[in-house]
Every structure is written in structure tokens, then in C-alpha cells.
């Protein structure tokens, strides 16, 4: 594998670390005494500092240094993780982000942030030795076990570490920063001059340090070497006899000794940091790949699937059994390959949700509205390109819910609601779609105000008749805003019309439901737009169409002579429940005469079930989705096209739009649509 630029790798890692740091800080704000969170923040800062310096981001390293020190003191219980500290740390996180993204640009503001930090930290706190001073919460975060004692660290570096650029002097300097220390070189392993390899560090070191609990810090210092080196750490007075032994297990008792102090806090709060630690542990088994390579892979797999379909078709008509066997085997292989490569592109939507916590945090302060942000369904997986493109629309919807949806705390109190508003973000699978909802428990949409505003803007005339849904959807019209005054959030020239456009572009839909006084929910329904899906191939007239198999519930025969007593009611009775159906022949304006035995494919989408009447069900196939060009992008009944085994093109039905068109409020697909 050829890695292009090491600083790119650093940037990527730093970005992730900063994201985790932000999440950790936001958690810490809720739970300021949680020592796992504090340790986590400290380690994140330490790593950014360390690798920043290593990759030449000296400004980052210098800037982070003071924060690291501050969090070190919080960790030692000499300072409290109060709201002010977290605020400034969040600002610092943004600043670090800027420094990393534009290392050459003049990024200002760093000094102010550091000055604020000093004021917060210097709230009368003296130097590091004194741990029984200052603020009240110290009592339970600074147990006596953490008082500085002498520790003996013995380590031998891996034999290949010099070749990889490790500088033992720098490591020793970092160790020295932990506290008063004595360093002794261990020369017992230096071989005879004849067999001496100058590229191997034969010297070991014994470092005695006076510190509270250096285990975590030492782990950080040796982060990149830890797996392949010998390292023992022991508390000096307990473990004097073992000090020279190379038994790594010596580290473990220390960790256990520390445990009672940690468990003194409510155990329930320990669940979150455990999750957070997860990425660190899995990092070694995951791989960073540029997105384009994945796209490329997917394209290739798509072509392979098409070629395989053609082979299968040829094999089916051939009498050559060897060919048939190969075709079958290839089919199995390519379907496996397809699933695997598709899985690579799937990302849990939680990666997106994380970003919004900061948004809500900042906005909550800016708007002066206390807000609780609840998320659900973080595990729901979506194609990564989809996730990227969803970020902006969701930001708008969340902002809107906070700014316009939720009332002020006073107004909420007056109407008997809790002063703290709730914004809920959730994702859930629904048939072949994913439904993502943003809901608030605010006042709900004001239909009369929307109407008045729309008339004022000339979007509708006073005599325009609209259903409730249509009226609510006016908020997605360009230039529409119901905000009485322009706040710093609205009036930025971007609005809900952007949301609508993006979701349309993803071939999704937006539902709005609102209950006056109880809140509004915007639900985005999005296809799983994977590059390849399983499809059911059907024939309507002379045309062949693919229906995504995930949406298909069952297939039944259309009872003969059903028209005779239907009289315009297009319903089927399927095991006692009514299912409306659409005749695709009519929808598509097919002129060829119908088959005597027509089939009905029952598809689901959200909570709707609709039958699609087709002439023939041909069978199942793997379908590579090809996007339709701009020339056909306005045709909503198709989500794309695919190439069949015989090389012809078949259209993929967009069942969600067909189901929507079969519902009474929709206008349906006019048969006059075949304009010349």
C-alpha cells in the first residue's frame, strides 16, 4: 500500500480525534466528575500534541500544550471540569481544527483562547504538588491513592525502532515531564563489539518518577511502540524486588489498585466512555481508504455483475453443462463480492449524528433556549455518499426545529410544558428505505401564518385550495421564512428550499406532521441508493422494468373479470385487507393489448401497501443502478436504469413514488403525460 502524504494521515487522524474530543467534552459537560471522560479528553489532547509535533504542526503542538496541562490538572483533581473550561475547550477544538486544515494561513484567536483558559485555570490554583486545595468537587475526584509516589519504569525499546525514526532522547524527555525523576541506563544487554548492530538500541532504561499515577501517561508516550517493546512499571516501595524483572504483568496490579477509586462514582456513568474507547481499540483492524477507490471498486463490481448476468443468460440457453456450472459458480461469487463491497460503503448514521450534538449545544446557548438533544437509531447504515449529502439538510432541519419550532423557555412554562425543549433525531429502516426524522416538542406549525406568509410572498393566491400537507410544504418554497424577525440563524440566504432540493436530488421525500402545541416532525424517506440491488424483473406491454426486491412483499394473480364489478375502485382483497392497485399499463400508457392473466406485485413503502399490475413476472436478477441523465431526472416514477443480461436497458421503478401517487392526496400519474 502506498501512502501518499504522511501529513494527510495525521490530518485525518486528528480530525477523528477532534470529533471524539468534542463528543467527550459534551459528555463531560453533562457529567463533570466522570474521570474516564477527563482521561479521555486528556489523552486525545496529548496525542494531538505528540503527533502534531512529529508531523511538523508545531503551532498545533504549542497551542494544545496548555490545554493538555489544564486537563492534566483536572485529571489529578487539582481543578474542576466546569462549564467555563468546557466552553473554552470546545473553542480550542475549533481552533485546532483550523490550524490543522490551514497550517500556513494566519489563524488568529489562539491567544485569546489561551488567555481565557489561563483565567479559568488560574482561579487561584497553585502549582501541581498541592492537591488538597481549591474547588469543592475535589473531595471525590482526588482520592488519597492518587498522591504522588515513586514509580520505577524499566523499558527496552523494540530492536527495529530506530529504523522507524524513534528518538529515545525525546521519549526520555517526555517521561521527564511527568515529574521529578532519576534516569539510569541499563547496559546489561549490550553485546560484544563483534556482534553489535549499531541500528539496534541495546540500551535499556530505568526511570524512577515521582508522580500520582503515570500509567496512562506512559502508555501515551510509548503509544506507537507499546506492542513490541518490553516495559514494566511498578510502584517503588511495593515492588522493589521485581524492579529488574521483565514481567509485563507488573502493570496490571497497578490498574487494579486504582480501580476502587474509580468505582466510587456511580457505575452507570461508565457506559459512555466505554463506547468512546471503542474506536481506539478497533483502529488497528480497520483501514483507511480514499473514497474514490471505493467508488471505483463499486463501478467495477457493477460491470462484473452485468457481465455475469449475460453469461448466465447465455448458459441458460446452452446445453453445455460445463458452461452452466461455471456460470452458476460465477453467479455465486459475484453476488458475494457484491454484498461485500457494498458493505464497505455502508456507514452507520451515528457518525453523522455526532456532529449535530455540537450544533445543538452552541445553538442552545445562542438562542437562550435550554434544549435536550435525543438521538436514536445510530446503528442504521446508509451508503456513505448518502450520509455525506444528508449532513446539510439535517443541519437545516435541526436549526429550524430549534429556532422556529421550539418556543422560548418562558412560553413553554406558560403553556405548562417543561422549560427544556426536546429535539429528537432518529433513523430507522422502513422497507427499501431509511426514514430519518427530526422532531421537536414545540408549538407546531401555524397553518394560518404559513398561508398568510405564502400569500404575502405571492406563492399562492387567497383562493388557492391546498391540502394541509401542501400548505405545510410551502415552507420548503424558496425564499419562504415564517420567522418574524431575522435571527443570526435565519436570513443567511439558505433555507428549507435547500433541504427540499437536496432530498429531491437523492430521490427522497419529506413528510411533515405537526400537532398544534405538541410539536412538528419532519421525516426524510430515502432510498438505500446502493449501487447494486436485487430486483424483480417484470414486463408491462413490451417494456421490461425492475422492481427493487426489498420493496416487494408478495405477488398474486389479478382475479379475472375484476373490472366488471370494480366500477373505478381499484382494490384487491388480500387475506382480508384492502390493497389498492395501480395498472402499470395505464400508468405507462402502454398500447399493446394486455395479457389474459395479469399479475399483481404488492410493494410496501413506509406504511403504504400498493399492488402494481404487470403483464408478466420474469424473475429475479441483480441490478446495477445507473443514474438517469438530467434529461430524465424529472421523471419520478423511475429511480434509475439498469442493463439486463441481453444488453438492453430496463428502467427501475421507484416504488415509493408509485405508492405515493396511488394515495388519494397525490395527483397520480396523469395519462396525458405522454406529451409529444
Amino acid at each position, binding site marked *: 500500500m502506498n501512502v501518499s502524504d504522511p501529513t494527510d494521515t495525521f490530518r485525518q487522524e486528528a480530525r477523528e480525534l477532534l470529533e471524539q474530543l468534542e463528543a467527550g467534552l459534551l459528555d463531560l459537560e453533562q457529567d463533570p466528575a466522570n474521570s474516564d471522560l477527563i482521561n479521555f479528553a486528556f489523552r486525545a489532547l496529548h496525542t494531538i500534541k505528540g503527533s502534531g509535533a512529529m508531523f511538523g504542526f508545531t503551532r498545533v503542538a504549542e497551542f494544545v500544550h496548555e490545554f493538555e496541562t489544564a486537563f492534566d490538572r483536572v485529571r489529578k483533581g487539582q481543578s474542576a471540569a466546569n462549564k467555563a473550561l468546557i466552553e473554552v475547550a470546545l473553542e480550542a477544538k475549533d481552533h485546532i481544527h483550523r490550524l490543522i486544515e490551514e497550517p500556513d494561513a494566519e489563524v488568529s484567536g489562539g491567544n485569546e483562547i489561551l488567555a481565557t483558559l489561563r483565567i479559568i485555570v488560574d482561579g487561584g490554583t497553585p502549582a501541581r504538588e498541592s492537591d488538597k486545595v481549591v474547588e469543592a468537587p475535589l473531595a471525590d475526584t482526588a482520592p488519597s491513592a492518587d498522591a504522588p509516589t515513586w514509580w520505577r519504569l524499566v523499558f527496552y525499546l523494540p530492536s527495529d525502532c530506530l529504523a522507524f525514526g524513534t528518538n529515545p532522547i525525546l521519549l526520555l524527555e517526555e517521561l521527564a515531564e511527568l515529574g521529578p525523576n532519576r534516569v539510569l541506563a541499563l547496559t546489561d544487554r549490550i553485546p560484544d563489539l563483534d556482534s553489535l548492530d549499531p541500528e539496534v538500541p541495546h540500551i535499556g532504561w530505568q526511570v524512577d518518577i515521582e508522580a500520582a499515577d503515570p500509567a496512562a501517561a506512559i502508555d501515551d508516550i510509548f503509544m506507537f511502540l507499546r506492542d513490541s517493546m518490553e516495559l514494566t512499571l511498578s510502584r517503588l516501595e511495593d515492588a522493589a524486588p521485581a524492579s529488574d524483572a521483565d514481567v509485563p504483568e507488573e502493570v496490571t496490579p497497578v490498574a487494579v489498585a486504582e480501580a476502587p477509586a474509580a468505582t466510587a462514582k456511580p457505575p452507570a456513568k461508565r457506559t459512555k466512555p466505554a463506547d468512546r474507547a471503542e474506536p481506539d481499540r478497533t483502529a488497528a483492524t480497520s483501514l483507511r481508504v480514499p473514497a474514490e477507490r471505493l467508488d471505483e471498486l463499486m463501478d467495477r463490481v457493477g460491470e462484473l455483475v452485468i457481465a455475469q448476468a449475460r453469461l448466465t443468460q447465455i448458459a441458460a440457453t446452452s446445453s453445455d453443462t460445463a458452461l452452466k456450472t461455471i456460470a452458476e459458480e460465477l453467479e455465486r461469487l459475484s453476488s458475494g463480492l457484491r454484498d461485500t463491497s457494498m458493505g464497505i460503503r455502508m456507514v452507520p448514521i451515528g457518525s453523522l449524528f455526532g456532529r449535530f450534538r455540537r450544533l445543538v449545544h452552541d445553538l442552545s446557548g445562542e438562542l437562550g433556549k435550554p434544549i435536550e438533544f435525543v438521538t436514536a437509531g445510530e446503528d442504521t447504515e446508509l451508503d456513505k455518499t448518502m450520509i455525506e449529502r444528508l449532513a446539510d439538510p439535517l443541519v437545516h432541519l435541526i436549526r429550524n426545529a430549534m429556532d422556529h419550532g421550539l418556543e422560548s423557555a418562558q412560553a413553554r412554562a406558560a403553556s405548562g410544558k417543561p422549560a427544556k425543549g426536546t429535539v429528537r433525531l432518529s433513523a430507522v429502516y422502513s422497507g427499501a428505505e431509511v426514514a430519518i426524522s427530526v422532531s421537536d416538542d414545540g408549538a407546531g406549525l401555524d397553518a394560518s401564518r404559513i398561508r398568510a406568509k405564502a400569500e404575502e410572498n405571492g406563492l399562492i393566491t387567497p383562493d388557492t385550495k391546498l391540502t394541509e400537507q401542501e400548505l405545510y410544504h410551502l415552507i420548503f418554497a424558496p425564499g419562504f421564512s415564517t420567522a418574524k424577525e431575522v435571527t443570526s440563524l435565519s436570513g443567511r440566504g439558505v433555507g428549507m428550499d435547500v433541504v427540499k432540493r437536496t432530498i429531491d436530488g437523492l430521490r427522497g421525500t419529506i413528510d411533515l406532521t405537526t400537532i398544534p402545541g405538541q410539536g412538528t416532525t419532519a421525516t426524510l424517506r430515502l432510498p438505500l441508493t446502493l449501487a447494486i440491488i436485487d430486483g424483480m424483473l417484470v414486463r408491462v406491454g413490451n417494456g421490461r422494468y425492475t422492481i427493487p426486491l426489498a420493496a416487494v412483499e408478495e405477488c398474486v394473480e389479478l382475479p379475472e373479470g375484476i373490472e366488471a364489478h370494480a366500477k373505478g375502485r381499484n382494490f384487491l382483497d388480500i387475506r382480508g385487507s384492502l390493497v389498492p392497485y395501480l395498472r402499470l399499463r395505464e400508468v405507462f*400508457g402502454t398500447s399493446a393489448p394486455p395479457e389474459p392473466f395479469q399479475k399483481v406485485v404488492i410493494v410496501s413503502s413506509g406504511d403504504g401497501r400498493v399492488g402494481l399490475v404487470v403483464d408478466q413476472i420474469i424473475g429475479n436478477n441483480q441490478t446495477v443502478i445507473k443514474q438517469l441523465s438530467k434529461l430524465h431526472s*424529472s421523471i419520478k416514477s423511475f429511480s434509475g436504469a439498469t442493463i439486463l443480461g441481453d444488453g438492453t436497458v430496463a428502467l427501475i421503478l421507484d416504488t415509493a413514488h408509485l405508492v405515493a401517487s396511488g394515495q388519494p392526496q397525490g395527483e397520480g400519474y396523469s395519462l396525458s403525460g405522454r406529451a409529444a
Partner: protein
Amino acid sequence: MSTPATSMNALTIRLDDELFAVEASQVREILDLVPITEVPNTPAFVGGLINVRGRVVPLADLRVMFGMERPEPDEDTRIVVMEVNIGGEPTVAGILADKVHDVTDIEAASIEEAPKVGMRWRPEFVKGIGKRNGGFIIIPDMERIFETPGDRNSPAAASEERSAL
């Protein structure tokens, strides 16, 4: 209407009984007739899709825009795959040709602006009229032609918009 400075390198094709010239640099390849998939509920001008080496490409019929007869395809029928700018985006599209003639240079001096009268075609679709061997060659304005059916204000598109809500 400004005309190219020197000459236009053009592919000449026949539609019905008229000769048309398209910018040779826009032409990607010329194919024999392939199976065409009809797209329901679309304007007849871009009513089809074809498979061009694994890509799904819309097939346009200029004869619709020029109000010409559309005879059944025969052994001369070809598909000219072109790259056209649609809404600022380069888009690959095929156009039907009743026959493909040759690639030729049309002298800029010989290209005249389409007359407003005396033409059975909509003048906005014609960039200019060239002359060769005593005959006329129509130079269509491909961008303009392809913009038209995708126009957001067209009734078909508008009704689609509404049903999507």
C-alpha cells in the same frame, strides 16, 4: 449570431430528406442501431434509453424537434453518440440519424444566419445554414434543443413536481 472564425469541422447526417451538420468535436462514436428502451411519460424527443458500452444513455430524436417524419429505421440508421452541455453539465446523449454521411469542413464564410421566414423549423433551434455542393446544410443548436424538453416550466415537469409532494 456569431459564426465560427474560420471553418466548422462537422459530421454530416441525414434526417428525413435534410442534411444536418453537428460539431465533430462533440461526437464520441457512431453506433449501429441498438435496442431502444422506451421511457414512459417522457417527451418523445428523449423518449428512449440505450446501452452504450455499459452506460445508460438517453437517445434523442432531432426529427421530433424539427417536426419531421419519423420513418421506421432501416439499414442506414445510425446512432451518433455526442457530448452535449445540458444546464452547464456535459451529458452524453445519442441522437438518431437516418444516415451518417461524412466529416467535412464547412467554411465559416458560407454559414449564414437562419432566416426568420421561409423555414419550416423553429428558428431558435437552428444555429446557421451552411452551403455545400449547391445544397443547404442545417446546423442545429444542440444546446438549445436539449435544454427545451428538460425545461422546468414545461407542463409535464410541473405536474411531476406536484405529484412528488
